C-alpha cells in the first residue's frame, strides 16, 4: 500500500493550456481531501504544440512521493514520448506507469481516487474505467 503517501499524477498534453486546465479541473473536483500531487506537462519546452520529454521527466519527478506515478496522455507524440521514456528505464521514477484512459475523464477519476489514499493499481483502474462511461 501507499504508507500514507499519495500517488502522483502527470498530465501530458500537446497543449500547455489543456494540460494545466485539466489539472485544475481535476483538483477542483477533489473537494476537501488531501492535496494530490498533480503536474501538468503540456506542449513543447519552447511553448509550442507538441510533447517535451524534459517537461514530462521533470513533472514526474515533482509528483513522486514514493507511492507511484500515474501518467495520463492525450494524442500521438504524447503517448509515444511517454512510452519511449518508460522504455529508457531510468528517465521516469521506477514506479511510474502510463495509464490507458481518456484524458479529461481519466484525469478526474485518477486524481479523485488518489486523494482517497488509494494505491497505484486502484488509481489506474479508476482512470481506465472512465472509458466505460457512455454519454449517449
Amino acid at each position, binding site marked *: 500500500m501507499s504508507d500514507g503517501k499519495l500517488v502522483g499524477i502527470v498530465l501530458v498534453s500537446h497543449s500547455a493550456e489543456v494540460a494545466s486546465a485539466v489539472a485544475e479541473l481535476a483538483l477542483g473536483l477533489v473537494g476537501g481531501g488531501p492535496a494530490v500531487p498533480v503536474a501538468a506537462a503540456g506542449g513543447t519546452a519552447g511553448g509550442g504544440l507538441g510533447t517535451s520529454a524534459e517537461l514530462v521527466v521533470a513533472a514526474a519527478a515533482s509528483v513522486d512521493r514514493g507511492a507511484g506515478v500515474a501518467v495520463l496522455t492525450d494524442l500521438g507524440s504524447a503517448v509515444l*514520448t511517454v512510452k519511449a521514456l518508460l522504455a529508457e528505464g531510468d528517465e521516469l521514477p521506477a514506479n511510474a506507469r502510463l495509464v490507458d484512459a481518456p484524458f479529461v475523464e481519466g484525469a478526474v477519476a485518477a486524481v479523485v481516487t488518489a486523494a482517497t489514499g488509494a494505491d497505484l493499481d486502484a488509481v489506474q483502474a479508476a482512470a481506465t474505467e472512465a472509458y466505460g462511461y457512455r454519454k449517449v
Partner: protein
Amino acid sequence: MLDADFFRRWMTATASSVDREADRLTALDSPIGDADHGSNLRRGFTAVSAALEKEAPETPGAVLVLAGRQLISTVGGASGPLYGTLLRRTGKALGDAAEVDEEGFAEALRAGVDAVMQLGGAAPGDKTMIDALVPAVDALPDGFGAARAAAEQGAEATTPLQARKGRASYLGERSIGHQDPGATSAALLIAALADAGAEAGGE
C-alpha cells in the same frame, strides 16, 4: 567492419540531408499532417550532431544510443520517440563492441525497426516510416546501395495508400495521393547510410 566513426558519419550525413530537405518534408506534411515534420527533424538531428561532437562516444552502439536519446528529447512530435527508439534500440542491439560487421548491423537495425513497429503499432502498408524501413532492412544483406533503393521505392509506394496511423489517419481517403513524410524521412536516413558507406570505401 563498421566502427564508431562510420556511425558518426551516418548521423552527420542524416543531419545534413534532413537540413537540406526540411522544407520538402514539411511540404509533404502539410496536406496530411501538421506541417512540422521537416522543422521537427531538423531540430532533432541538429541536437544529435551537437551531442556527438560534445560527448564523442567510442563505440557504434554508444553513438546510436546517444543519437536516439537526443531525438526523443528534442523533436517534440511523434517522429522523436519513433526515430529515437529506432536508433536507441539498434544501438543497444549492437552492444559495446568497438566494431560491428555488416551482418551484425543488419540484425541490429531489424531489432530497431521491430521496436518502432511495437511502439507505434504500425505495420507495412499503413503509410508510415515503416514502409521505407522494412524494405530497407530486407535489402540490407545486399548492401547499403540496395537498402537505399529499397527505402526510396518504399517511400514512393506510400503515395496511393490510405493512412491508418497518426494524424493523417483522421483524413481517411483524403490521405490517398500524398507521399508519406515519415517514409520520406526514413528514406533519407537510409540514403545517409549509403553515403557514410561510400565515404568509407573512398578512404
